[in-house]
């Protein structure tokens, strides 16, 4: 039995690839930080990511955005990449994954 559709499988794969993107200041990948709110894989050739930052004026913001774009371009060279910056809901520590919490030293 197939639990996931092809589209969902691709989206899970994208989340996996995005673990390569590290916040250089915090040294945690953006998935474990909970910065990726939504991934949309469109078979017609577009990947859209809803991304947030831990704070609106985060000085590493541009670096993270560029890295997400480069990462996806590398794995999906034929796709158009769209990144939407979203500020609602505001990022909080509740969005950290268990692995992210462990990295930050939260027991």
């Amino acid at each position: 039995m197939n639990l996931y559709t092809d589209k969902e499988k691709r989206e899970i794969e994208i989340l996996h690839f995005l673990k390569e993107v590290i916040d250089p200041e915090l040294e945690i990948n953006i998935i474990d930080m909970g910065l990726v709110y939504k991934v949309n894989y469109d078979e017609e050739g577009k990947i859209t990511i809803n991304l947030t930052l831990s704070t609106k004026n985060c000085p590493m913001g541009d670096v993270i955005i560029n890295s997400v774009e480069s990462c996806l371009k590398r794995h999906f060279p034929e796709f158009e990449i769209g990144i939407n910056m979203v500020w609602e809901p505001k990022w909080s520590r509740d969005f950290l994954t268990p692995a992210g919490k462990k990295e930050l030293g939260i027991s």
Partner: protein
Amino acid sequence: MLKPSLRDNFTYFIIIAHYISAALFFLAIAILLVFSSESFIGHYFHPKILAITHITTLGWISFIIIGSLYQLVPVISNKKIFSPMISLVTYLCVSIGTVLLAFSFWIFDTGFLIKTAAGLLFMGITLFLINILLTVRQSKENSIEMDFIQASIFWFWLTAFIGALLAFNFQYAFLPKEHLYYLKIHAHIGLIGWFLCLIIGVSSKLIPMFLLSGKLNTNYLSYCYYLINFGLLGFIIDALFLNGLERAPIYSIIILSGISFFLYFISNAFKTRARKKIDINLKHTYISFFFIAIPIILWGILKFKVIADKQIELQISTAIVFSLLFGFITLLILGQTFKNLAFIVWLKKYQEISGKERTPLPKDLYSGKLATAQLYLFIISYITILCGILMSNSFTIKFGAICLMITAILYNINVLKIVLHKSNSMPLV
């Protein structure tokens, strides 16, 4: 008009020039302290103390602050620095002015040299004020942090203005009250208005960001802003136009209550932080906030006449300024330099290739071991010098100054390591 990329490069080199100059000034302070330890016994109005204090406040602390603001103000306001060329003129005026001022105090030349220095400093600081105000004016972003930064720069300008008047007053003696009276006002505006407001504005933005703090109530910062600024304004108006310094303790309590709101805000930032592991830079910051208690306690001892001895009172006055400039501000800077400078250089070298190639992290640009050694050595030197001042013991001060000199050497090595960093990215596999 500079092209955008050239303009960014120009601003980058000006920021780096500020950090390098500040590091060298810090080393110079430590060396001068070694050779003038006996000057710290007796009245603080001493040529060598005046020289060292001005290198500390202008060459060391203000240079780091100005360099950091050229990077931070665009981040907060979302606008580039209005004129990098004005930044360069500011840098030249303030650096030459600081060296001339310190030299004229050291040899106590109150003639042409000190007036030239005061003129250069006043011009440089006025240009700095204009440059930042014109940058902020382009922005639509409003925040309490930006209010603190703008207020602090205005106080910086006023400090320089009164300082320039004092420099001319040495020769022409045109001020109605004695020189020391205005020196106290000059010092209070500089310490509280410029340094404290600026540190509050910058750290209330950066510390919660670095710590990934939870939701914080910024109303505390607003209370702090109004209490400190009204307290200081009241103190200045009263001192210059009304009753003199009689009511100074009342204004001090208003300002202290403002500071306590800020400390409460920062303690909440630490309590609600998601980042439990604190790196060496934040450890510097953490300890510096504890050290702020020392000048406050000393101030209480002085104001409430706990010890009624003129000589000890003078030593306590010197110790208050020393502990504010070193125990609190210098320690804060020593840690934050490696956060901010490493970040600035990292962005310059790797922003474009980040995500495309494997790059080092900002923390790889400096030696963590040296930064740790620097922290412990600094604490030893600070405590030792402070004890030496309070006990009127020049040998203890000299020993502390030697430790401070080693601290400054370690700091300079790490600063050079960051600014001379060569790109060493690798392809992603």
